[in-house]
């Protein structure tokens, strides 16, 4: 991220905006934001990560649904504790009308379901160009 001292309105300027990967390809949406609470009593909360994916989005509709989706996510992703997919703020390169990030989309946690569908569903159709046994996705 460039210049310090920028001022933003979380909902107006960040929330629901598209996330573009290193190649400028749409990869996810800013479905929620994660803040860490300050340790000192009068400190301000710090923006630590962008949350994205169905589990994050669902929380804005219904908390219980979101909890289920967060649990379901662990079937596909080996994370210690349930939660939505996140992109750390250190990976955010630029905030404009869209959010530009440094990783490539296939490396993102949020792309897990996509990879799973590609390998387990679409790979079985002729001409998909997908190798069902490729190792680029977690087992």
């Amino acid at each position: 991220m460039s210049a310090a001292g920028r001022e933003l309105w979380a909902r107006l300027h960040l929330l629901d905006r598209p996330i573009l990967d290193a190649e400028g390809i749409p990869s996810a949406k800013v479905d929620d934001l994660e803040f860490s609470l300050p340790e000192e009593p009068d400190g301000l909360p710090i923006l630590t990560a962008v949350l994205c994916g169905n589990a994050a989005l669902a929380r804005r509709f219904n908390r219980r649904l979101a909890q289920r989706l967060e649990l379901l996510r662990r079937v596909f992703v080996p994370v210690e504790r349930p939660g939505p997919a996140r992109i750390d703020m250190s990976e955010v390169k630029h905030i404009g009308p869209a959010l530009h990030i440094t990783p490539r989309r296939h490396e993102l946690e949020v792309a897990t379901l996509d990879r799973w569908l590609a390998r387990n569903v679409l790979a079985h159709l002729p001409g998909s160009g997908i190798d069902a046994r490729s190792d680029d996705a977690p087992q």
Partner: protein
Amino acid sequence: MKRVFEIALGILTAIGGFVDIGELVAGSQVGSRFGMNLAWATLLSLFGIVVFAEIAGRVAAVSQRPVFDLVRERLGPRFGLANLLASLVITLATVAAEIGGVALTLELATSINYLLWVPVVAFLVWVVVWKLNFEVMENAFGLSGLALVVTGIAVWQLRPDWGNVAHQVLHPAKPGTESVASYFYYAIALFGAGLMPYEVFFFSSGAIEQHWAKRDLPVLRANVFIGFPLGAAVTLSLMLGASLVLGPRQIDVGHLYQAALPTSVALGKWALIVVLLGFFACTFGAALETTLACGYSIAQYFGWQWGKFVAPKDDARFHLSLILTLVAAAAVLLSRADPVKLTEFVIVLSAAALPLTYFPVLVVANDPEYMGVKTNTPVSNALGVAFLVLLLVVSVAAVPLMIITKAGG
């Protein structure tokens, strides 16, 4: 020379892009029942799509943001989702109607029942989107634009009383045999046929994919201001042909073959073949566009990759949504929903749903963060708001009129 050819091809493509199953059905029906007394509704939809496509295209070219992306961002996830579902239901029904149109045209060409063609057509559409042979679509539209010119020649050959035609267009009156409610119901049907929501989101998404930039705005405007009016001219030819040939014989249009009948009567067998080719090409092209439009709207809401050139390995979710769209559309048709009836419903509901997608685009066109100095001028805002009010009126009136007239009666 090459430049001229490109422009000509672009215009033919825009004609084909404007005309689809909605115009074929509604244009002929209205012509037969109301003569040219509802031509104003097509002209109004032409005005509407020009305003809307110009704004959406400009927003897309300058901000690189497609419609559904903006819908969610500006209306929030909840209202955005409701909006997405409404648009999806309508666009999905449109996919079914277009595939039905292709199947019915194939039936007219081969006399093999259209229900047998439905899975074949759905499969062909899938092959095109799956293997990304996207030129098929552009060529389909170019071909249909060229073939549908024959409807204009047919009208010329029928030698209408042009004075009377002009009178009906300029001083429209409700024919005595029709009720006020059905007059306005059909007005809304024609309006919706010209302005199906998918047309605009496809148009603006295309602008982003082809990396249109500010410098392409003149080309965009040429497409909008020349191609769409010619598409409307084709619709008016179908209407006039029906009013000259079918209307005097009290033939109600309930089948697709009747839309081709005036051309056949006027010009003969070869013209019939050409016009059926035109029907095939424009409905097939529209089936491709509407299928992709379903996938685009879902992908843009959730932030996935989308586009004509996205391969299955690039985004599995997007391709899976295309497959599910086609399966659902084929299932609707195979459950024996009449494609012509389906078209009638779809065009009226399209008109009702228009404000949902139009509103966020209008707002963003005024946002300097996206548009820089290319924000709407006061003139385009005045037109834009006038059009928004018109859309709201149409939207409120559409469903009650559908109930009162029992969908046209």
